[in-house]
Structure formats: structure tokens, C-alpha cells
């Protein structure tokens, strides 16, 4: 080995400023190490870009350097992407466009540098990180689960702005590139190798050595990156203008159908990709920047970036602050370790919770009243894990390990060393009381009892407890393995450490956790209730099922409210509805339609009969026309025209109901209730309310959440519309005091954002 020299680029002498990029030249190979000071991950920001520009010009001139390796100094992150905080400072589309152009130019200079740069990738390589890797001349990835690659920009309402829309399709083929760009999905290193995203896959311990070797070989012209461009399919379809035109047209059609026009970045990304093929790469880069600039200014992007930051904040939020209980020592806020949990109730919810708990290494005791139920729980956990196995998200050993962490029982054996019990039995207070008493007799005094009730107030359940300070709610959403939200519900008696433990454990399970105060329906179900109820009242009034659902899917909900009732189960919905009606009789009186349908024994998907038809396998079909006869007197009330009429003959006789009216009635009922939750102290902040609604009940993310949406509508408009509706439907739309107050004072929920 010859002498190694340490050079820093653009370092300021005499200050504490440290460079993000350091270079070490050994035997003609420059090792560029990216290690952003004072950050856990590497992000691309303006300062790093400036360092990079200086570095590139130095490498261009330095004749002793033959080739370079770009490697990360962080343990499990290569480059996580651009610094999104900087995006928020962008005031105009032109600013954003310039940011993109600057990035493109830097990457262009890297691509065409005299000295080839080899990307040695271990850890996350996302967004601008992947775009940087694509500009390098050769890419090596490590065979490690932390090494993931992707372009997640669309998830923030943006498009790749560093040449990704041009380099990626040319590297891996149009079809595969569109798949990555339009979904924002992350692929593991092995898949990246198959796609041609990286050239080689190596063990992490030899990454540096192989990268240095390859750098020399590339510099000497002995090796170069092989282009895949999508394999045989790529050759036949992506490789010629006619094939590409078909792929692009199909992508546009599918994207519009799926996004219903709510996500303009998807179409902008396709446009940018297409531009490069139509008029050349230089034009493509310009179009990419132009679209990037436009997208950065969209409301959709602002809302999605807000949600990104809000979820990140919640990841760091312990859920309970010492300032809330100054009388307690700091230790009272330290979460307790949770190694073994017990789940009581092996139904759909219990099994879902078990499935994620075992995947995070918890030992699970799964109890139900009889063996048949426990066996069903096992089968449900197996189905969830098998699906992950089939999708290669886990391997066979993980599958068998996860299953081995599950221990079924019909008694309370094995409860002696559980740290946390999650009760997921029927929504019946007497049963929950009995279970709580039996459980407390079998667990250690330090164990925590969490109920997964979705509606019964926790304080009512805790009445049966001999240690109510260790009782709280952990409200998971169905299906547990997919829904990202967890509501941790505390009572006035819940000990802070118990809250902190539930929050920490929820985060360990990968959930976004909001801490809410006790009350009927807590937060998510409380705001869902008037929304669902209003939809059901429209059914009473003769509006067809499918036009209600369609109006709200168009608004941006993943499914319509009536479909949701069928999915949740009408029995569950009516039970919850009763609790809500008892709590808020003036505005949550249950609709006749749901009562009538449930009375007819139609429970929705679970009974394969509800508002919709289901085939033998339980696959949902069209609206079941026979449902109307259960709650409408034939001829007395006209059924509002439906897109797919229940019976053909009546079609002409029915008046229409505008979608906007359906949307306003249902959504305003929800917004109004959300405002009440905030003023009642159910939620701690508008932020929690927005995150809770988006991740818990599918409130359209591009609208930011109920509070962000109210801000963008204007509180005065919200109040005015509520008053209009209240005039037509007295009682149900009485504006929340908070909204009246805010309208009067011209306040908003997020004052910082309204400049």
C-alpha cells in the first residue's frame, strides 16, 4: 500500500463545521465517504451539493486519481434522498425547478466525469440517492435486508427531479421504471440486481474491497455496467417507439383510473418520462425539472409532505411528557420492556395483532374460550404470514420462527410472565369485565392490561380492575397487519409509564401511534360515526348505495361508507352506533336502513350477505337490489338515480343527487366532529387528528386530514356550510363551538403554514 492522504473539500478552517464528504486516495483510487455530520442518515441538501460540486471539479483535475468509489459512512443508510425540509422553503415553481436543474447538472457532471465513480451501496438508497447511484458508472449493492432502493417521490406528491425519470427507464426498461416511479416502492438488493438497477450483489464485508477493484477495472476499460433495459420484454416492447407508446398510454389510463385525478404527480412523472423519449434526453431533463417545479407547489404535495413530517414527529413522540405530571419522577415515563404478550380473543383482530407481534419478536400467548377458536386464530396468523412468505417478504425460517412464537391456550396458563395483555374479545362490557378480572388473577402486578375495544369507554372497562392505573386502550384498526394507525387511549387513572409502554410497543410493531383521551368512540371511530350515519340516513331517504359510495371514493376515500359498513360487519356497526347514539343522542341517532338490514340477518361480508352480493369465496359483487325493499316502501320514496340501477324499469323515473351534496353532508359531519374531539381534549393536537384520520379511517391523504382540509376550505366556509345543512337537517350539523369561535377570530388550525 502506498501513502494515503486525507483531503477535505470546501472545509472551513477554524470553525466547527465538518464536511459531509471526505476523500481518501489510495493507489489512484479515491474513496469518497458520505457521512452527514450530526444526522443519523445521509440526505442531499444544498451544502452537500456544494461540497459535491467542488469535489467533482477536483477529481476532474487531479491526475493522480484514476477512479473513485462513493460509499456511505452511516451504518445502514447509503443516501436516503433529498432533504425534504429544504423543499418547504421553496416559494415558487421556478425555485423548485432551479433546485432540480442544479441537481441534474451535478449528476450530469458525475456521469461524464473523466474519472469513473462507482457506487458502493449498503443501506437505503432512495430518491435523490438512487438518482445519484444511477449517474455513477457502476453500482454494487450489498446482499442485506437494509439495502433497499427506490424512488419514493410520488408518495410526497413530487416526481424524481434529479434525472430519475430519464436515467431509470434507460437503465432498467420503461415498464419496470414506470412501476418503480409510479408506486414509489422500494426493492431489496436482490430484486435490484434482477432489474439491472445494480450491477453486482456482494456481502457487506467485501463491499469496499470489491468496489475498489471494480473502480480500477472500469477505469482501465476492462469492465462496464451492462444494461438490462427490461430483458426480452424490454427488447420487444420498451425498445421501440411503438411499444413505448403503448406502455405509456396504458400507464396513463391505469394511473387516471386508480388515482381519480387526485395525484397530479403521477401523470407529471409519466409526461416527463415520455418527453425524454419523444424529443431526446436533454428535453426530458428540462421537462422533468419543469414538472418537478410545478408539483412542488401543489397543495397535494404540501399535504403529503405534512403527513410525512407529522408521522416522523410521532415516531419520536413518547406519547406522554413529564411536564404533564411534574409530581412524578422521570423514571415514571420510561417505557417498560415488552417481551411476552398475551392476546385474549383469537378472532380476526386478535389474530391480526398476534401476526404482527410475532414478526417483531414478541412471544405471544393467544387465548380464547375454546380450542376451535384458537385454531382459527392460528389459521388466520398463518394466512397472514403465508402471504408474506409467498411474496418473499419473509423466508421459510422466519415463517416457522414466527409461528413458533405463538402459543395457543384456552386457560390462563403461561400468563405469569407476560408484560402486556391485549384483550380483543366481543364488544360486551360484562364479558370484558369478566376477562379483566380473570386476567388480573393470572398476571404479574406490573403487567399492563390493554383493551382493543373500538367503542366502549376504557374507564368503564377499568371499573372491574383492581389496578386501574395499569389499564388502557390499544385500539388497532382492521386489518391489523395493514392498517398503520394505533390509538392508545388513556383514562385519568392510567399511569404515565403504562402509556409510554403501550406507545413504545405500538411503535415497535411498526404503527403510527396517537395518544387519545377516553370517550365514546375515542377519536377515529367518533369522527367516523356521524359520517357513516349520514350516509345511512341518505339511504333512508332513498339515495342508492352505489352513488353514495362512488361520491366518497371520488372524494378520495379508499372505499365508500356503505362498502365500509359491509366490511366492518353490520352487527359491529350497529353495536358501535348504539354506543355513539347513547353518548350523542342529538346528532348520532342511527339510521333506519342499517337497523333494517341487520334485522334481516344480513351482516355484510362475514355473512356473505349485506348491501352487496358476495360469491361463495366471499368475493364482493354488485349492490344487492333486494336490500332496498328492507327499508324503503316501494313507490313511496323515489330511489335516486344510480349508476347501476337496482332494477332497470324504474331508471327513468328517478331524480339525481349531486355527488358534491353527498360529499358535503358526510364529510362535514366528520369535520365538525373532529373539531369537537379537539376542543373536548380527545386528541392532543390537530396534527394527531389529521394523522389519525388518514391512517386510521382512510381520510384522503392528499387533503392532509380533517383539520388541514378545514384550513384549506377556510373555517368560515366550513361553518357556513354546516349552518346551511343544519337549517335543512336540524341538530345534526350544529357547528362545533370551536369552529364558531375560530371563524369569528379568523383563526386556522395550522397558523404557521398560512403566510
Amino acid at each position, binding site marked *: 500500500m502506498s501513502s494515503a492522504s486525507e483531503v477535505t473539500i470546501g472545509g472551513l478552517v477554524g470553525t466547527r463545521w465538518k464536511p459531509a464528504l471526505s476523500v481518501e486516495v489510495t493507489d489512484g483510487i479515491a474513496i469518497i465517504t458520505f457521512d452527514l455530520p450530526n444526522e443519523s442518515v445521509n440526505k442531499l441538501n444544498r451544502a452537500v451539493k456544494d461540497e459535491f460540486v467542488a469535489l467533482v471539479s477536483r477529481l476532474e483535475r487531479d491526475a493522480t486519481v484514476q477512479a473513485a468509489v462513493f460509499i456511505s459512512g452511516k451504518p445502514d443508510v447509503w443516501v436516503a434522498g433529498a432533504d425534504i425540509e429544504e423543499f418547504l422553503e421553496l416559494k415558487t415553481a421556478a425555485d423548485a425547478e432551479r433546485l432540480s436543474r442544479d441537481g441534474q447538472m451535478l449528476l450530469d457532471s458525475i456521469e461524464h466525469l473523466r474519472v469513473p465513480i462507482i457506487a458502493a451501496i449498503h443501506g437505503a438508497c432512495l430518491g435523490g440517492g438512487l438518482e445519484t447511484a444511477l449517474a455513477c458508472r457502476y453500482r454494487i449493492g450489498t446482499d442485506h435486508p437494509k439495502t433497499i432502493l427506490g424512488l419514493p417521490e410520488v408518495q410526497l406528491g413530487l416526481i424524481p427531479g434529479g434525472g430519475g425519470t430519464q436515467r431509470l427507464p434507460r437503465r432498467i426498461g420503461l415498464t419496470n421504471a414506470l412501476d418503480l416511479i409510479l408506486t414509489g416502492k422500494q426493492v431489496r438488493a436482490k430484486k435490484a440486481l434482477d432489474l439491472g438497477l445494480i450491477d453486482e450483489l456482494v456481502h457487506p464485508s467485501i463491499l469496499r474491497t470489491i468496489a475498489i477493484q471494480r473502480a480500477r477495472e472500469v477505469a482501465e476499460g476492462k469492465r462496464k455496467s451492462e444494461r438490462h433495459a427490461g430483458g426480452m420484454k424490454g427488447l420487444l416492447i420498451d425498445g421501440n417507439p411503438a411499444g413505448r407508446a403503448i406502455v405509456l398510454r396504458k400507464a396513463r389510463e391505469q394511473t387516471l383510473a386508480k388515482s381519480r385525478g387526485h395525484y397530479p404527480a403521477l401523470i407529471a412523472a409519466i409526461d416527463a418520462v415520455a418527453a425524454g423519449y419523444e424529443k431526446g434526453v436533454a428535453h426530458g431533463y428540462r421537462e422533468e425539472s419543469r414538472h418537478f417545479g410545478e408539483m412542488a407547489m401543489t397543495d397535494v404535495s404540501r399535504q403529503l409532505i405534512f403527513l410525512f413530517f407529522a408521522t416522523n414527529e410521532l415516531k419520536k413522540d413518547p406519547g406522554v411528557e413529564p411536564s404533564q405530571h411534574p409530581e412524578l419522577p422521570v423514571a415514571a415515563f420510561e417505557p417498560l420492556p415488552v417481551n411476552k404478550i398475551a392476546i385474549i380473543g383469537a378472532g380476526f383482530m386478535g389474530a391480526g395483532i398476534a401476526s404482527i407481534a410475532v414478526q417483531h*419478536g414478541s412471544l405471544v*400467548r393467544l387465548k380464547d374460550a375454546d380450542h376451535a377458536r384458537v*385454531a*382459527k386464530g392460528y*389459521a388466520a396468523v398463518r394466512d397472514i404470514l403465508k402471504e408474506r412468505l409467498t411474496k418473499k417478504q419473509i423466508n421459510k425460517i422466519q415463517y416457522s*420462527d*414466527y409461528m*413458533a412464537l405463538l402459543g395457543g391456550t*384456552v386457560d390462563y396458563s403461561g400468563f405469569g*410472565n407476560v408484560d402486556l395483555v391485549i384483550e380483543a374479545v366481543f364488544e360486551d362490557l360484562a364479558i370484558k369485565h369478566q376477562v379483566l378480572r380473570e386476567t388480573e388473577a393470572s398476571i404479574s402486578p406490573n403487567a399492563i392490561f390493554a383493551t382493543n375495544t373500538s367503542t366502549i369507554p376504557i374507564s368503564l372497562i377499568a371499573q372491574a380492575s383492581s389496578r386501574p392505573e395499569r389499564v388502557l386502550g390499544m385500539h388497532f384498526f382492521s386489518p391489523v397487519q395493514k392498517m398503520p394507525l394505533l390509538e392508545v387511549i388513556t383514562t385519568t387513572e392510567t399511569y404515565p409509564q403504562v402509556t409510554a409502554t403501550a406507545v413504545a410497543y405500538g411503535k415497535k410493531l411498526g404503527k403510527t401511534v396517537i395518544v387519545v383521551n377516553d370517550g365514546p368512540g375515542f377519536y377515529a371511530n367518533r369522527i367516523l360515526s356521524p359520517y357513516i350515519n349520514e350516509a345511512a340516513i341518505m339511504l333512508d331517504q332513498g339515495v342508492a348505495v352505489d352513488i353514495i359510495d362512488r361520491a366518497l371514493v371520488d372524494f378520495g376515500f379508499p372505499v365508500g361508507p356503505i362498502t365500509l359498513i359491509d366490511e366492518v360487519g353490520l352487527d359491529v356497526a350497529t353495536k358501535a352506533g348504539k354506543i355513539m347514539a347513547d353518548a350523542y343522542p342529538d346528532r348520532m341517532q342511527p339510521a333506519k336502513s342499517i337497523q333494517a338490514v341487520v334485522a334481516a340477518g344480513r351482516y355484510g361480508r362475514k355473512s356473505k350477505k349485506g348491501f352487496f352480493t358476495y360469491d361463495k369465496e366471499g368475493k364482493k359483487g354488485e349492490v344487492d337490489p333486494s336490500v332496498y325493499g328492507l327499508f324503503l316502501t316501494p313507490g313511496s320514496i323515489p330511489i335516486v338515480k344510480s349508476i347501476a340501477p337496482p332494477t332497470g324499469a324504474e331508471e327513468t323515473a328517478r331524480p339525481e343527487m349531486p355527488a358534491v351534496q353527498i360529499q358535503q353532508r358526510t364529510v362535514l359531519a366528520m369535520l365538525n366532529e373532529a373539531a369537537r374531539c379537539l376542543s373536548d381534549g380527545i386528541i392532543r393536537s390537530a396534527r394527531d387528528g389529521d394523522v389519525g384520520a388518514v391512517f386510521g379511517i382512510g381520510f384522503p391523504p392528499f387533503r392532509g386530514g380533517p383539520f388541514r382540509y378545514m384550513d384549506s376550505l377556510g373555517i368560515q366556509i366550513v361553518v357556513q356550510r354546516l349552518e346551511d345543512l343544519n337549517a335543512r337537517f336540524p341538530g345534526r350539523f350544529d357547528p362545533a363551538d370551536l369552529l364558531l369561535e375560530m371563524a369569528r377570530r379568523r383563526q386556522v388550525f395550522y397558523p404557521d403554514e398560512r403566510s
Partner: protein
Amino acid sequence: MATFGNGRRVAIVAGVRTPFAKAGTAFKSISAIELGKLCVAELLQRTNLDGKEVQALVFGTVVPSVVEPNIAREVSLLPLLPKGVQAYTVSRACASANQAITDAADQIALGHLDVAIAGGSESLSNIPILHSQRFAETLVLASKAKSLPARIRILARLRPRDFIPITPAIAEPTTGETMGQSAEKMAKLNAISREEQDHFALRSHRLASAGTADGRLTAEIMPVYVPPKFESVLTSDNGIREDTSYEQLAALKPVFDRKYGSVTAGNSSPLTDGGACVLLMNEEKAKALGYPTLGIIRSYAYAALDPGEQLLQAPVLAAPVALKRAGLTLKDIDLVEMHEAFAAQVLSNLKGFESKWWAERAGFSQPVGEVDRAKLNVMGGSIAIGHPFGATGARITTTLLNELRRRDGRFGLMTVCTAGGMGFAMVVERTR
């Protein structure tokens, strides 16, 4: 060996087993390793023991998997245990689980371990099917061939008969005698009648079904939610026949000697799948962890004789040695658990206990004595419950200790006969 003179006593803290299922039934798609994992996982779950406390796992199996021969290591790699738990597999035919238990106990007594899991499992639904010698040799030769044509030339030597698979039989390699034939021979040598055998088999089923009905037997059994589909659950042994009668048993034809024989499928233990294990601790460690113990191991002994003589008679040689080491006689024993490979073998063993001739062979002047039938296999035995070779020893240990506790007895004796002409005996003492 109670203390090895260093004061360390070995306690049995708890035992758990899967239900025992007749081969080819409920557990037919579960391997021995999975059965082992199931019972060890449940042992840890039920005892509320943090896996980090466990230092070693010893497991027995008789027909090991060819691809995963160290079953103990595979079981110890359960996610409930740290990867640093060392593990090894033992084989002493039907006393394999006993061998696992005594090995672990010795290590605890020596002070090398404080906490260990020992047991065994067997899947007779999943025994390896072997290729013929010629087929195997040809494959090895072909794999060494240098070219494809050479490889084909070698493979072309195979004849249809070479493809006939070999299933391992339960036969003595030295004598060629199957175990049933040995039992048949013992019945004749010791003058055990067909009637006696059938009555004993009936007793086994009656007592086992009573133990199942009143929950004494099922207390040690975990429910197995049957993978891979979990459409069924087995909570008790499926070979126990509460409805069987002497007449039904008497109507069965002898299997191993159709003309003069007396050993039938009804008075033999069936081929069985299952797993069983026990948690062993140094008594002081158990106290420190706050675990009540079932009992301690007072003594044990292994013995052997010529397999061509009376294959399953060696417990008669082992039992007096174990009793002597415990400083006890049969009169001190409150319960006896004797493994029932065949009714003919149990009855031969019992006769041997009473025989001066067998006593002298064992080096004692006086026989062990007559076993009080009211103390013998009080919840039936392997004939009814089933006999997964590698697991039975742990099953008997748990049953004996649990029942001693229920009956407020103090000392228990267990014996197990094995292939190869070997026998095992152990004395346990209930702790209070």
C-alpha cells in the same frame, strides 16, 4: 448419585408433551423436529420461564432425519431460546429421552449447568425411506464421473430391482429378529399367556381413558393446533380406546407367530408420533428463580444383556441397581411407571422382578420383589397411550412425578426396556 457428594441436587420442575397420535393420523405431516419444537415452546410458555435462563437442551430420537440429524440443535434454535443454548442429540432406542434426561441431570449435578431442557420426539409417520445399496453406490459413482457420457454409462447399469426402496424395520441388526418376534419369544420363555396379555392391554386402555376423562393425564398434554392448516386440534392421545373390551382384544390374530403366537396388535404398543420434554434445574437454582419443583432424581441405572436372549428383559437388571443407588427397596416405592412395549414384556419384566435367578444375574441375592399392581402404571401405559420411541421416557417421567404429587407419595420408580437388549431404571423423590 443423588448429590454426587457436592450437594447439588437435580430437580424436575415441569414436563409437557404433545398428545400422542397413532402414526399416519393427526400428526402425519409434522416432523419429529417440529414435534420437539412444539413441546419445548409450550414448556417455556407454560412455565413462564425466560428462555435466557436455559443453558442446554438434550434431545433423543430413534429414527433421525437424514438431512437434520442433530434434532436437539434444531429444536434449540427455537426463537424462544437464545442461539447460545448448546444442544446435542442422544440415542438409546426407546430410552432415548431417559438418556437425554440423565445426561442433562449429570451435567447439572456436576455443576456444569443450572437449567436444561431434556426430552425427545419421534415421528413414525415420517421415517426415512432409503434407496437400495446398489442404487446409492451407482449414484455416488455417477456423481464422480468426469463426463456426461461416462455418467450415463454408469447410470445405465441400474436395474429395476435397484429402484425398490428400503423401509427400516424395527428389527435387531445382530439377530434379525423384529421386536414383535422378541416379545413373542419372551412370552413363551416366561410362560405369559395370551389371556394375561390381553387383560393387561385392556387395563392399560381402561386406566388411560380414566386418566384422560378426569384430566390427570391431559394435565401434562398441550393442545396441538395441527399445522400446516390448523383446521384441527388434538388435545389428548388418540390411540386410547375407552370402548375396547377383552372380547375385542381376544379376537385379534397374533401378528408375529400366526400359529402358536400370543402377541397381537392389541396387546402391543402402536407406532406413534409425539414429543415430550421436561425442565431440569439445580434445586438451588429453582429456588432462586422461585420455581416449585415436582421432585428430584434420586438415582438411575442402565443395564444390558444379549439381544438374542430376551431382548426386552434388561429393566430387571437395571431396577435393583437404581434402587440400591437410591438406598431404597421396592417397599419404599409408592408408584411404578413401567414402559409397555408389549404386554408380554411388562409381564415378563414383572416376573423377572420376582425371580431369584434374575436377581443373581443382576448381582443381588434377593429379587426386587412383587410389584403391587395398584401402584403400577396407574394411568395406563404405552400400549394405550402410544409410544413415540424418542419421547416415551420424558412422558413417563412427567406422569410419574405428577401422580406422586397427586397421591402425596414420596418415591417413584420407572423402567424402560429398549432395543439392543438394554434397560433403564430411575428413582425419583417427590419434593415438598
